[in-house]
């Protein structure tokens, strides 16, 4: 029986047994859980089921050297069990710890958990490759469903991230709303201003002109600095025109935040608009004009449908970028999920930081998927 394991990812030679070995190490060396007396202190390592995990991973290592089909299936099953089961195990262990602890005690997953979970997920990804799409989707969906179902029964309530969230539910929902609003308003304004600007830049051939140069320069200004720099002019504006101030316009808050985010978003929108217009074949444009289309008809019925996929790809990047940058906006009082990050840093409460960060990442991923879906939809039609 020769050990000729399949490579993990096309083009890499990382074999399956290496992943299993990583899982094995993760079961032993780093902490599976960390237990702290309150939410501000770092905790002590705790690995209650190290033997169980080690046994599972040892089996996986063994299976990765076996070439009979059954070995492949056992390995896939082990990986799936790891993906779905490790969070459940962590939740159960946390509950056990909390049963004999003070109400302030916090239990959070440690490096051992994260590493093991990642190894299991990569292993599952590898074992599923080559299977039918429906099987692949089914396996992931089943794991997700198991975790969601368990969370509904309170299986993770002991973990400190969940406890943090439960304690902050109302402010979290408000911050999420603010964050979405900041990003959405910025995106709409970026499209409303950036697309016409891009059209103008394309028509006048000023891709290297002052406008694009200025926008490119703005990209290099650190976001924190830009937000800070805008405080004074916006405060002055609100002071000079009290009517604006009455509308919520001021040195801090949503207005300067959206303005700063817009400054960052404009360049990609302008660039991708130009690229979209460039993607329209010159001969189609020539024919459209020659056959008597007005500029508006050309734009609407030729340039827009042909350039749209490129522009949409640009908006996807802008959406992800804006959701990330909007975190900083909380520093000038615009709210959003960034508040959790910065408050958490200020208080030394890592769970709060993690809560904000994970929510921002999830939001960015959802936006990314949304735009990918839109893109796939438009491309199918073409």
């Amino acid at each position: 029986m020769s050990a000729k394991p399949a490579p993990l990812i096309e083009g890499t030679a990382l074999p399956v047994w290496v992943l299993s070995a990583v899982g094995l190490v993760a079961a032993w060396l780093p902490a599976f859980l960390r237990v702290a007396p309150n939410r501000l202190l770092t905790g002590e390592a705790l690995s209650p089921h190290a033997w169980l995990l080690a046994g599972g991973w040892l089996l996986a290592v063994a299976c990765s050297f076996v070439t009979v089909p059954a070995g492949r299936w056992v390995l896939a099953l082990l990986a799936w069990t790891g993906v779905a089961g490790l969070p459940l195990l962590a939740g159960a262990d946390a509950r056990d710890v909390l049963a004999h602890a003070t109400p302030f005690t916090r239990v959070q997953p440690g490096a051992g958990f994260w590493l093991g979970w990642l190894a299991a997920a990569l292993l599952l990804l590898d074992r599923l490759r080559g299977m039918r799409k429906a099987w692949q989707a089914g396996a992931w969906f089943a794991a997700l469903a198991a975790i969601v179902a368990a969370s509904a029964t309170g299986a993770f309530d002991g973990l400190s991230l969940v406890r943090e969230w439960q304690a902050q539910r109302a402010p979290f929902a408000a911050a999420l709303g603010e964050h979405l609003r900041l990003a959405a308003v910025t995106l709409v304004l970026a499209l409303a201003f950036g697309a016409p600007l891009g059209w103008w830049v394309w028509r006048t051939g000023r891709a290297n002109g002052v406008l694009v140069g200025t926008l490119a320069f703005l990209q290099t200004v650190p976001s924190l600095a830009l937000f800070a720099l805008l405080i004074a002019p916006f405060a002055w504006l609100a002071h000079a025109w009290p009517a604006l101030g009455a509308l919520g316009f001021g040195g801090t808050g949503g207005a300067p935040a959206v303005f700063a985010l817009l400054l960052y978003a404009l360049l990609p929108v302008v660039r991708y608009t130009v690229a979209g217009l460039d993607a329209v074949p010159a001969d189609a444009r020539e024919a459209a004009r020659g056959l008597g289309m007005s500029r508006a008809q050309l734009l609407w019925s030729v340039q827009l449908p042909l350039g749209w996929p490129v522009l949409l790809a640009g908006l996807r990047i802008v959406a992800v970028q804006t959701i990330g940058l909007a975190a900083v906006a909380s520093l000038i009082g615009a709210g959003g999920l960034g508040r959790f990050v910065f408050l958490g840093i200020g208080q030394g409460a890592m769970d709060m930081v993690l809560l904000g960060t994970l929510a921002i990442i999830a939001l960015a991923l959802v936006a990314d998927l949304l735009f990918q879906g839109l893109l796939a939809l438009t491309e199918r039609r073409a």
Partner: protein
Amino acid sequence: MIEFDHVHKRFGQQVVIDDLSLRIESGEFFVLVGPSGSGKSTLLRTVNRLVPVDAGQVRIDGEDVATRDAETLRRGIGYAIQSVGLFPHRTVAENIATVPRLLHWPPHEIRARTAELLSLLHLDEPGMGSRYPHTLSGGQQQRVGVARALAARPRIVLMDEPFGALDPLTRESLQASLKAIQRDTGTTILFVTHDMDEAFGLGDRVGLMLDGGLVQVGSPLDLLHAPADDRVRDFVGGTRARLRELAVRTVGDNMRRGEQADGDPVDADASLQDALGAMLSQGRDRLPVQMHGERVGAIVLADLVSRRA
């Protein structure tokens, strides 16, 4: 009727059209021929105002195009170009319907006209109308381009080297289609090419353009028999001019009426080039001529060779 009246055009310092005057009659098939860069496309594009003139006038039926609304003007003029420029996101039928749609024709009329054009241009494979341009061959795409130019029954059609990128067989078949359509509809066609054979094969009259000016305007035979100067003589082909001439003249006009000959007959409306080909392949120096299946005379090699006034 298209009139160019002392038209000037320059791009920057470069004079591209230099005081050019020309009158193209209604129903005429006029071919502008000349080397690349001589200003043919620029001249063509002054007619539908894609290029504004610097001085002089371009008139259609006596009316200066500069005074017309550009979009309305263009919707009344067919336009086909070498690169075709089909809209890749629209089907063949939608491409053809471009101008009728801009003119707000009722849908059933658009459908009927599209179907008519598809068959007129031999695009009548089933399902052709709903295909997308990238699924067509180059020749088919060009046919769609021509159909699109003709869709709204314009009285004037501008064509800029529309068959330039096609293989010889496809080009010939498209030339034949176009010539037949033009004869049947009486459309005025202004056609640009750099190919002398194409010019002589299609044009009622041919204008030879060099460096922004017309050197000679006349029927193909005028240019062949009486070149205005050496530049024209060179361009129409020097000694090859006589071969071109054979392609332009018909058997019917050059046969010996009532005479007899042996061999497979040639048609009276075939070109002398076809007749010469038939003589060479049959190894004879005279052949019978038929018209509607009836023998009407003979065509003789010596008559082809002798220079006629």
